[in-house]
């Protein structure tokens, strides 16, 4: 929200305070100010006297005469009275310059916004042979708004020579831009009056605003029937006649531009100014368009058509609130008026509505109809119903002061059946002290609250606090809210920081955390994987590319892009997409991701509490090699090695691979394996399916591994006991055999282990070699770790074992052994 310091100073005695300096205290004590701008001279580098000098060059001037420029058809030579006594001649190309026009003149030395948007200091210029000093300017050239259609037209009577900064205080001003989100809970701060009250309290200065007095007429014009007092706690209106629609006075136009509003006409501008000042939105109806003599506040009927004054047609629902005349809705309450009753250029007789509406209703309607207006933004914050009368009076006074011949032509209709009871909070000084953790007495608490216009009755430690109506609608309701008031008033910076002293607690680590941490250590700290993160969303083409069914995914109602409408059920669509993005630069990649997947659970019933799906945590690993041959299995066995090493750190029993019975569609159906831990399946390893490679356009050979982290966490911890060290020396014996590819290395290992169990501690396969000479066979090298528990091994034993081993592999496995 934009705030004008000059306008604030009208309502509190703070005009001498530096608005830039005080903005920091406002941020620390009230709400966040995003930006502070000093406006008036578009060049921020100019300060002090140089700035004042530049400002003094901008003044009101009157066009005395115009004659054509001898050299240029579109230019005029204009005689201007700038109050200096001698009329001056300038060259102007603005289309609206004409004799009698009151405008704004920027003399030599003034700083304006040049055509390129940069500040420009005006100097004497010669335009097509005619010298010209100074110029008549548009709003945009003065850095006010974006209107550069022509030079400013001053509608009110101001003497030529008057400084613009004197005629319109908002010209030379300091603007704050307050973060709206930080005012969500402060309905009282959505107008300058409320902000002035807060700033006055903060600066310990008097708050001077009082609603003006207005004499209403005695006769009735239009009655009010509130059929929905729950949604409209207060509705007031009155009529004004003798209105003449025209431009607003210069000061108001400039103030509105400063506050981010485009001036429209005096009546619209007065309603906007009232909203920006008092904080309560208003609406003016053209009396000619209201049928009958009663305004009805009612719920809309389901499907009721209504066109708002921005020209958009809506179908209303029974949840919307409308303002209606005898025949038709004329406004969508608190959101926007209707096209059918808006004021027009020839309006002379208006009905002015000032009302209070139910916050949630206004918000729902505004969101649903997509009419998020300044009005709905305020009502949805829960405005104080007492603002209604202040806003009525303020508006009437503006009209009466600025439109000669206007008058209030009716009495003040005010339907306010149930003013809210005063909100009272009981609090102890001690409570504030304990919650803030600072020394503060009940008397000091009372003093702060009183300064913020709370009424406080103190009885020793006990305070009985009455909340002012403008804070009572939503913001302040419980003792904790008062703690905040005291805390922010004192400044949180003044609270000393102390660590809490608390009882010791039993240590506890979530199993999943140690699972993830150990696997991350093993893979990313030790096996050279780069930990990546990818989005939780998938593109349909990637899902299809991975041979998965998009309909077996959870779909987003409002995806960030239509291309990524589903939640991932696997980490691989995004990881493979990453491999493709990177593969031109990175011929070998090792990526690991730890993250959740989201699996629809058709059996689950929707519940108000728990999300109805499963979202297990998985690790997804990829190894890629752009130069490898698809038939090469090195990557697969590298992945196997890395995964098993990682799983061995988990203290959950033996990590192994087994045949994968039901490979996922993304996996190569032959080159895949199930991964087990303590005998339980916890994942799989697989080369990418050839069709996936083709579909995705993957150039590299890729092997994936998928580990279900939650499955590991659910397994019981297994501590493998120590095995005693051998007392007698052992030895290793190697055996190499050329084995048919159809034989599994594990089967041979098992057979070798059984040959002489009393001396065989372990058998491993440690080398594999394939040669084109034997396309159907591979050479496998086995190592037998041998030792006897009670004695040294005998030479004969070894020879015998070797013989048996050779015979076994030859006979049982059809292998060839080099002798």
């Amino acid at each position, binding site marked *: 929200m934009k705030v004008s310091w000059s306008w604030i100073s009208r309502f509190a005695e703070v005009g001498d305070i530096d608005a830039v300096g005080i903005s920091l205290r406002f941020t620390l004590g009230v709400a966040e100010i995003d930006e502070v701008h000093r406006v008036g001279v578009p060049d921020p580098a100019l300060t002090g006297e140089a700035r004042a000098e530049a400002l003094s060059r901008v003044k009101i001037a009157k066009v005395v005469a115009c004659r054509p420029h001898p050299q240029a058809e579109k230019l005029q030579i204009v005689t201007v009275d700038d109050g200096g006594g001698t009329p001056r001649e300038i060259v102007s190309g603005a289309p609206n310059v004409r004799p009698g026009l009151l405008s704004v003149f920027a003399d030599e030395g003034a700083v304006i916004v040049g055509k390129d948007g940069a500040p420009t200091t005006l100097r004497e210029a010669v335009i097509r042979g005619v010298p010209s000093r100074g110029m008549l300017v548009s709003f945009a050239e003065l850095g006010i708004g974006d209107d550069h259609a022509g030079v400013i037209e001053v509608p009110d009577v101001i003497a030529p020579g008057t400084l613009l900064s004197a005629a319109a205080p908002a010209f030379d001003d300091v603007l704050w831009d307050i973060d709206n989100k930080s005012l969500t809970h402060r309905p009282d701060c959505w107008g300058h009056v409320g902000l002035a009250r807060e700033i006055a309290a903060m600066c310990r200065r008097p708050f001077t605003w009082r609603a003006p007095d207005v004499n209403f007429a005695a006769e009735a014009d239009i009655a009010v029937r509130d059929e929905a007092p729950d949604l409209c706690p207060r509705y007031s209106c009155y009529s004004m006649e003798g209105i003449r629609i025209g431009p607003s006075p210069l000061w108001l136009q400039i103030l509105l531009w400063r506050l981010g509003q485009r001036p429209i006409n005096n009546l619209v501008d007065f309603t906007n100014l009232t909203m920006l000042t008092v904080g309560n939105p208003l609406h003016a109806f053209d009396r000619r368009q209201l049928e009958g003599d009663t305004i009805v506040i009612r719920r809309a009927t389901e499907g009721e058509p209504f066109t708002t004054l921005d020209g958009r047609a809506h179908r209303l629902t029974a949840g919307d609130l409308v303002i209606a005349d005898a025949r038709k809705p004329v406004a969508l309450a608190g959101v926007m008026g209707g096209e059918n009753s808006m004021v027009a250029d020839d309006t002379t007789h208006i009905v002015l509505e000032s009302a209070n509406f139910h916050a*949630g209703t206004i918000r729902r309607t505004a969101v649903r109809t997509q009419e998020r207006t300044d009005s709905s933004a305020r009502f949805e914050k829960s405005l104080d119903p007492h603002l209604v009368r202040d806003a009525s009076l303020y508006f009437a006074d503006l009209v009466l002061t600025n439109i000669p011949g206007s008058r209030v032509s009716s009495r003040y209709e005010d339907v306010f059946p149930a003013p809210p009871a005063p909100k009272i909070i009981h609090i102890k000084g001690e409570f504030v002290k304990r919650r803030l953790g600072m020394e503060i007495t009940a008397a000091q608490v009372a003093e702060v609250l009183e300064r913020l216009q709370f009424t406080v009755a103190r009885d020793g430690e006990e305070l009985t606090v009455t909340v002012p109506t403008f804070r009572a609608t939503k913001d302040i309701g419980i003792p904790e809210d008062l703690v905040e008031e005291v805390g922010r008033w004192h400044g949180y910076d003044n609270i000393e920081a102390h660590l809490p002293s608390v009882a010791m607690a039993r240590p506890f680590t979530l199993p999943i955390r140690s699972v993830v941490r150990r696997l991350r250590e093993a893979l990313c700290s030790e096996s050279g994987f*780069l930990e990546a993160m*990818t989005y939780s969303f998938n593109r349909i083409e990637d899902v299809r590319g991975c041979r998965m069914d998009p309909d077996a995914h959870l779909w987003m109602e409002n995806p960030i892009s239509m291309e990524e409408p589903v939640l991932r059920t696997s980490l691989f669509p995004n990881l493979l997409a990453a491999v493709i993005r990177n593969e031109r630069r990175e011929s070998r990649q090792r990526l690991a991701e730890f993250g959740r997947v989201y699996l629809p659970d058709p059996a689950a019933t929707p519940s108000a509490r728990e999300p109805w799906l499963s979202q297990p945590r998985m690790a997804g690993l990829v190894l890629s090699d752009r130069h490898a041959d698809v038939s090469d299995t090195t990557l697969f066995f590298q992945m196997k090695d890395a995964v098993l090493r990682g799983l061995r750190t988990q203290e959950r029993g033996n990590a192994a691979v087994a045949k994968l019975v039901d490979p996922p569609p993304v996996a190569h159906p032959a080159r895949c394996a199930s991964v087990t831990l303590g005998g339980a399946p916890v994942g799989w390893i697989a080369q990418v399916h050839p069709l996936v490679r083709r579909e995705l356009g993957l150039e590299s050979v890729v092997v994936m591994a998928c580990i279900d982290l939650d499955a590991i966490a659910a397994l019981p911890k297994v501590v493998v006991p120590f095995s005693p060290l051998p007392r007698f020396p052992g030895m290793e014996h190697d055996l190499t055999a050329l084995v048919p590819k159809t034989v599994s290395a594990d089967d041979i290992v098992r057979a070798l282990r059984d040959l002489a169990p009393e001396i065989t501690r372990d058998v491993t396969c440690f080398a594999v070699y394939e040669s084109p000479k034997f396309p159907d066979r591979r050479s496998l090298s086995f190592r037998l770790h041998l030792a006897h528990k009670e004695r040294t091994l005998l030479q004969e034993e070894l020879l015998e074992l070797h013989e048996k081993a050779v015979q076994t592999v030859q006979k049982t496995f059809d292998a060839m052994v080099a002798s």
Partner: protein
Amino acid sequence: MSDSITLLVEKAQAEVAAAATADVLRDTEVQYLGKKGEVTALLKSLGGMAPEERKAMGKAVNDARAAIEKMIAGRRGQLEREALDRELAETGFDLTLPGIPLPSQPGTWHPVSIIADRVERAFEQMGFIVLDYPEVETEHYNFDALNIPADHPARDMQDTFWLKNGCLLRTHTSPGQVRAMHEYPLPLRAIFPGRVFRYERTDASHEHTFHQVEGLMIDRELSVSNLIAIMKVLLETIFEREVTVRLRPGFFPFVEPGFELDILCMNCGGAGCSVCKHSGWVELLPCGLVHPNVLRAGGVDPEKWVGWAFGLGLSRLAMMRYKISHITHFMGADPRFLRQFPEGGAR
């Protein structure tokens, strides 16, 4: 002439069927349909014929051409299928063969994981437990239980991704507050890091997916003073230097009083620079005393217990620590980015 066309087609058929590899098939294609191919030569020979004859023969040659094209396409599909079948039906693959150690190379943790680990270690040492809560949430935990009823304007502060099934992607880690209150006995000290989602366009500093850590402490006596102290300790642990913090009012419906915690810009020391938008301070985390309504939603009696909570942006912290300019790097899985963070977990 028509006989020679028939013969040509028959010959082509035989050769296409005999083509055993994609390469041989390509040669066959060139031999018949290429610029100097046999069918092309026939077409050229039509030039010398009488118009009537040319018309009839032209059609015949074109038919032959179409037939050969079809044969080749069919054979190509067949070869591809056979290749795929061979690839898929591999018999010699033995998954029990020994693993091959990967060549040694430095791996790295994701920068957000590094920061999360530091935060977790720091809190664990102060006696907090580390919890993990779901990313797909219900409206109840994400909003209602946190004192943000439907139609509350505060819902605008967190643009939400909704699922077609009515669930949502959590917009903050705060749902964990109420979940933790339900699950664990009091007093409670817990943090819960994780991935959160906001429905917004991505640019240099905004990302629809980012990481936060939520902290929650509930005990008999806790104060704003304690909160400031813990936050200061935490930040000094992460940044390994002294940190100046300031608290200012901030509105979040689930805390009362609520604050924004800023730190003195570490880039310029408070003098003003582009990192702090020339304000000298960097907004870092919202925090506050847990609102009594939230305690009640978690089954905790606000008359007996008091809590504080904070939500810290891990992505933000990682950006500050490593001076990362674009938040989108985090989710890009680009090795050139990922390789830059060798420090690994906290020691």
